[in-house]
């Protein structure tokens, strides 16, 4: 490779020179960009620009702070609205019967009796009376009363049709509400319970309980009824 004796050392010298040149190129670039090597005019311009930038940034910080405050406010408002909506939905679900509920209330039991007739109209009357007395949720034989519950009489004396189900004795009507108020509300003299007991001799049992649970019905489906758009 090194045919002549001068080639090796000269090559080393040239390589080192190249390396040094390259390093110097970089150091020089760094020096040109260095603030120490700038003229005072340039430095003044730089300082002025930085000052302007500084005030711009302060302004920006204030703007962003204001923006953040506004966003936080609207976020908390949204949160409140969302909570209110969730509570409203819960209430509507309870009213509609799509969620199971529990609470204090009243249990009215109509036991089996062969002598006296207890029909669908009596059930409806009791339920109406319960609603009137302030019941918040009602079920009959474990079926929750919802917006489209119906009761129909049958040919047999011992059965009632409730929402396509045939129910029979013993009829158990559960209502959630203030137990004493419910009891008093349905037990008024010459009210439905009084009439059933005294005139028709039906052995009703009324029990106030501290806690009873009512099941849910499946969510209603609407095919034809739609919300009126503004």
């Amino acid at each position, binding site marked *: *490779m090194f045919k002549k*004796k001068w080639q090796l050392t000269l090559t080393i*010298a040239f390589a080192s020179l190249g390396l040094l040149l390259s390093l*110097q*190129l970089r150091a020089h670039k760094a*020096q040109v960009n260095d603030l120490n090597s700038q003229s005072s005019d340039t430095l003044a311009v730089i300082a002025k620009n930085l000052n302007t930038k500084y005030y711009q940034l302060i302004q920006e910080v204030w703007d962003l702070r204001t923006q953040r405050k506004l966003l936080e406010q609207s976020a908390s408002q949204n949160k409140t609205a969302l909570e209110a909506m969730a509570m409203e939905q819960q209430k509507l679900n309870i009213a509609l019967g799509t969620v199971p509920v529990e609470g204090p209330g009243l249990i009215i039991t109509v036991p089996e009796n062969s002598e006296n007739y207890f029909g669908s109209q009596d059930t409806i009357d009791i339920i109406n009376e319960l609603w009137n007395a302030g019941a918040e949720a009602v079920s009959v034989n474990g079926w929750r009363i919802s917006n489209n519950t119906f009761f129909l009489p049958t040919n047999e004396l011992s059965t009632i049709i409730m929402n396509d189900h045939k129910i029979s004795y013993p009829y158990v009507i559960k209502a959630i509400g203030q137990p004493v108020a419910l009891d008093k509300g349905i037990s008024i003299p010459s009210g439905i319970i009084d009439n059933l007991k005294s005139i028709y001799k039906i052995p009703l049992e009324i029990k106030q309980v501290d806690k009873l649970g009512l099941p849910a019905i499946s969510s209603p489906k609407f095919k034809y009824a739609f919300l009126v758009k503004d």
Partner: protein
Amino acid sequence: MWLPFLALFLGFLAGQTFTFTLPASFAPYLSVAILATLDSTLGGVKGVMMHKYDGAILMSGFFINGTLAAFLVFMGDWIGVDLYYVAIFVFGVRIFQNLAIIRREFISKYVANHLKKNNSSTHEVQ
């Protein structure tokens, strides 16, 4: 013959691929060191041309001159004497002298021989 120039190029590339950069305050010393080493290298080329080449002189001149030049300028800054311009002047002059000698040698060796072949009446250029 082209090996030294290839080496120059490779050395430059190596310096560019390094990630580290010397501090900006080193630039004046490095520039003086480069002038000194350039002078030594051209001296080496001159030696080759004049058949008086000595590898030891080149290597010692290259490294010792470079280091000492940078160091002297540094010392000058230290004691308040601006040796930077002195070094630039001295090495600048030497570089141009070396270049002049190399040019003359090159012409007398290659160009003159070439011309002689074509025209025997041409005199050697000094």
